[in-house]
């Protein structure tokens, strides 16, 4: 196996044994980036000399026998939605094309403290709005398993970077499935932690009651390792929760026994691709073979989740994105007649179509005369969706189903039909509305060679159980060892 195909845990062991150092590892991944980026286009910015300087510093620390962080010398790719001090952070948008943050996001601080090598910023749908990464203002990332297809989104760059072995780990954000769906379509592991588990300080806001930061990796062990580093309280995000962070990477190999798995019947409805369903059924067989008790449950209000999401998320977005006014930072249009015209022209020219569509929808849902019918109604249904999960978790440890109803679709296939694009997140959205934890793990391939993901959901702050359950499947299968030919 080539160095770049290794997991973070394996690279860490190789470094500890003195087989390889951080500079060699970083050079190997930079070389992979140079070779593969013309095809994959996962990254927006890579600063080679900065990455090598970070690696050199870590090798020096090791040489002097200093204490090293848990991710010492491991390259990590960062979705360009997270602020990095002194390095351009675009959020995939023209409006932030030249924005250089004056501070690091909390997650970035954590990664630096863990001695990770921040190798580059990855492509994304503009302001994390999309399911294919085609809404990026800068480039279209390709699925490493089939370059004619999308990698999923909105964290498509982060998912593609890991799948293409351009980085062993990546960080993304998930507002309605933006980590789990691209992980599924790219054949890797991706987790959305419980709302409040990871600080959102320095995350460019999309929908603040739904956004959560989480890890991408080749396998579940690496997911545990990265989550352990980024999780935990931060006083700068008042929704990040005071709760100890369990040592996920130490318990991940302990199976959950007894294990009761709930299958929400709504996740296996019409619209589910038969090949995707077949792979999920195979995964369930694995759990049955391990003695799990599997039963059907119902989340009766989940059919309303997409509608609720496109009110709540767009309402919050219309408010959050009001800050792009051409005054404090970001793009300002060159010609205007007045202050108001400066706002509207800067925003009209700076934002892409999907962002404008969502700001319009959210503004409409919050506007006088429509607030009760849309926004307030959606918040009420949101409670019903959450209560469905509460009932299901009262009788099950975890819930399982497909992450995405179909494998990766073709570039351009849904670009002209926003509603069809929205429906590709039908199984992932309710998890964000309920604020619970979810993971996607690889569970097979279609006949055409496209990866399929299994989604596992657990109750609030049950990441430890979620990882252990995910690892049970992984220990019996080899889907996580597959790498695309590039």
């Amino acid at each position, binding site marked *: 196996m080539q160095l770049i195909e290794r997991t973070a845990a394996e690279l860490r062991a190789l470094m500890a044994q003195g087989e390889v150092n951080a500079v060699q590892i970083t050079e190997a991944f930079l070389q992979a980036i140079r070779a593969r980026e013309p095809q994959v286009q996962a990254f927006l910015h890579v600063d080679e000399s900065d990455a090598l300087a970070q690696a050199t510093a870590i090798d020096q620390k090791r040489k002097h026998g200093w204490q090293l962080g848990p991710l010492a010398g491991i390259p990590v790719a960062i979705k360009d939605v997270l602020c990095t001090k002194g390095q351009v952070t675009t959020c995939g948008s023209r409006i932030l094309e030249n924005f250089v943050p004056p501070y690091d996001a909390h997650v970035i601080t954590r990664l630096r403290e863990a001695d990770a090598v921040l190798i580059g910023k990855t492509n994304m749908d503009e302001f994390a709005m999309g399911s294919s990464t085609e809404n990026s203002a800068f480039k279209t990332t390709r699925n490493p398993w089939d370059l004619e297809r999308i990698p999923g989104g909105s964290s498509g760059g982060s998912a593609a970077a890991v799948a293409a072995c351009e980085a062993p780990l990546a960080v993304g954000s998930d507002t309605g499935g933006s980590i789990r769906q691209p992980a599924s379509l790219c054949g890797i592991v991706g987790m959305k932690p419980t709302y409040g588990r990871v600080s959102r300080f320095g995350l460019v806001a999309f929908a603040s*009651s739904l956004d959560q930061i989480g890890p991408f990796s080749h396998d579940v062990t690496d997911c545990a390792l990265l989550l352990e580093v980024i999780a935990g309280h931060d006083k700068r995000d008042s929704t990040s929760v005071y709760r100890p962070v369990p040592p996920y990477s130490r318990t991940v190999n302990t199976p959950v026994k007894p294990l009761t798995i709930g299958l929400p019947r709504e996740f296996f409805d019409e619209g589910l691709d038969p090949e995707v369903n077949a792979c999920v059924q195979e995964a369930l067989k694995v759990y049955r073979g391990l003695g799990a008790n599997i039963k059907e449950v119902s989340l009766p209000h989940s059919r309303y989740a997409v509608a609720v999401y496109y009110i709540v998320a767009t309402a919050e977005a*219309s408010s959050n994105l009001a800050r792009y006014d051409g005054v404090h930072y970001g793009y300002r249009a060159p010609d205007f007649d007045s202050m*108001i015209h400066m706002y509207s022209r800067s925003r*009209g020219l700076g934002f892409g179509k999907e962002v404008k569509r969502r700001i319009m929808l959210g503004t409409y849902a919050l506007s006088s005369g429509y607030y009760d019918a*849309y926004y307030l109604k959606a918040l009420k249904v*949101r409670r*019903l969706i959450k209560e469905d999960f509460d009932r299901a978790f009262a009788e099950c440890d975890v819930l399982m189903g497909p992450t995405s109803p179909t494998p990766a679709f073709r570039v351009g296939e849904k670009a002209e039909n926003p*509603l069809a694009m929205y429906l590709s997140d039908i199984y992932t959205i309710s998890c964000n509305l309920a604020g619970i934890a979810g993971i996607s793990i690889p569970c097979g391939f279609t006949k055409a060679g496209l990866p399929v993901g299994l989604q596992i959901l657990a109750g609030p702050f049950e990441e430890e159980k979620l990882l252990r359950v995910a690892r049970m499947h992984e220990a019996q299968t080899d889907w996580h060892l597959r790498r695309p030919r590039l």
Partner: protein
Amino acid sequence: MALTGDQVRWVAHLARLELTEEEFQLFTGQLTRIVDFIDQLQQLNTEGVEPLAHALPIHNVFRPDEPAPSLSVDEALANAPARKGDFYSVPAVLD
């Protein structure tokens, strides 16, 4: 429910978005279809259901009001599209 052109223009105004004629046409059709889709919520009886704004059972979070260092003026203004001295520069609001 079809969105009228006037509604779409009003919403664009509220959102401070200058749209091209092509975008205006495109969005009027697309937003109508999306609003039709989300109108399915009206079928559901939610009488007596408390709205849920976010999933955590925390509400107000307080901390001591202690002075701490913040960004310098130069750092805060570094990304400003226009600056005059120690201030953001904007077009005149009043004549």
